[in-house]
């Protein structure tokens, strides 16, 4: 599996956490992986993003300039990164927060009202994982049997309630 993934949104939406889950899933699945966050003052209330790479061969640059998969969770992120998606790539938009459609016609776009679904289903703060659930469903990035193992790496066992909620969010995204 080769995939360059960019996840972008506001600080506080769990952008970096979503990336961490993916990178663990990739590692458990046997891929070469890397994770690189944006860092600095822009994270405090501003935009946050992270680059995740899955590769069959050792990874050179950990920076994702031309994502195969872009997850956009706010409008500034969509405006900034939509033009960078590789032609033929996939774009996942949180349509509860972003009201405009995608401009690109040479990529496949998926609209998921993740933030609204999270609120309706009692999964507050887990719109990120609903988005990731949809990404997994549409891209086959990681087989379902790895999801729980990867989640256990990023959510400690002592927070089992959170573990279940995160898994529920992934499942919600898969079916959204």
């Amino acid at each position: 599996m080769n995939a360059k993934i960019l996840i972008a949104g506001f600080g506080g939406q769990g952008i970096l956490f979503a990336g961490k889950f993916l990178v663990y899933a990739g590692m458990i699945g046997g891929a070469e992986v890397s994770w690189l966050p944006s860092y600095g003052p822009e994270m405090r209330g501003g935009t946050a993003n992270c680059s995740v790479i899955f590769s069959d061969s050792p990874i050179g640059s950990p920076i994702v300039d031309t994502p195969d998969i872009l997850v956009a969770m706010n409008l500034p992120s969509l405006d900034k990164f939509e033009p960078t998606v590789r032609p033929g790539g996939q774009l996942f938009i949180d349509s509860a927060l972003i009201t405009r459609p995608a401009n690109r016609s040479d990529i496949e776009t998926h609209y998921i009202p993740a933030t609204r679904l999270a609120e309706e289903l009692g999964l507050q703060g887990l719109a990120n994982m609903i988005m990731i659930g949809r990404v997994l469903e549409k891209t086959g990035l990681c087989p379902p049997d790895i999801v729980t193992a990867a989640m256990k790496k990023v959510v400690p066992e002592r927070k089992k309630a959170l573990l279940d909620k995160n898994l529920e969010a992934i499942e919600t995204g898969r079916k959204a």
Partner: protein
Amino acid sequence: MSEKVLMKGNEAIAEAAIRAGCRHFFGYPITPQTEVAAYMARRMPKVDGLYLQAESEIAAINMVLGASAAGVRAMTSSSSPGIALKSEGLSYLAGCDLPALVVNVQRGGPGLGGIQPSQSDYFQATRGAGHGDFHLLVLAPNSIQEMVDLTYLAFELADRYRVTAMLLADGILGQMMEPVSLPDPAAADLPPKDWAVTGTGGKRLHNIVNSLYLKPEDLEATNLARYEKYAVIQRREARHEAFLLDDADIVVAAYGASARIAKNAILAARAEGIRAGLLRPVTLWPFPKAAFAQAAKTARAFVTVEMSMGQMIEDVELSVRCAKPVTLCSRVGGMVPAPEQILESIRQAAGGAK
């Protein structure tokens, strides 16, 4: 081989230092290396070690000097402007011939600069770490695994030669995560620290750790002895990685994060029929001069890729004795060269697009 875990580069350095037996860390926060200190603050108390946040970078490096003089493995970490503040202490460490580990997770400069990745402290690390004639032993990791392996090596070489080692990383390597395994460091046969000031118990003459010599004859002698030691280090400890180098017409020279990006460009160049390869210095001092001199025999041109205005390029030119053209591909100020930019530089060096 221990199980692979995902860690940030900064955390991997800290964990590796603890596994290497370091129990004395003196820090001061600065982006993008703060996770080193944060990890140490969390872990050191659990291994009966000392984490101390000093009142300044200058205080921290002098605490390292004191701890090292007492014979323990000691370290500090910072980022570019913070390392500049440590200059005095680095020079005193050299003058006292003390082992220590100093980590620089570089950010853009000069001045306060910015917080994004940079490699513009190459001169500072390899030439101008402080006043007087001395060198740091400078190691430049380009993966999280190397951040572990070179931390182990840095402590070992520092103790073996009684020199201060620097791990020169950058914001990308400090912040990124990739799988890493943390085996315990291999046992090394190191000389005893019989010079350390540990108390005589009334049974021997006291040791003196000092860098002040008012008689010029004495001071000259310490300098000459130190440079004999440096000559041994240059002979024995230069390290590099070669990637697709054997048949390379165009040799890309890059270290750290730049070398990772350069690999993407080299593979793209190969796909276009340009025989490009990478010569990556792992030690920046001593610089792997022999490897570059060897490559210059068969290469047509060199391209250095640096997140600086051109610093390592001087060592490349010196090493190849200007026998082949050397050009610079760079971004600065926290900007990172894209593979396409490096590919274009490779094409230019190869004589235009093929």
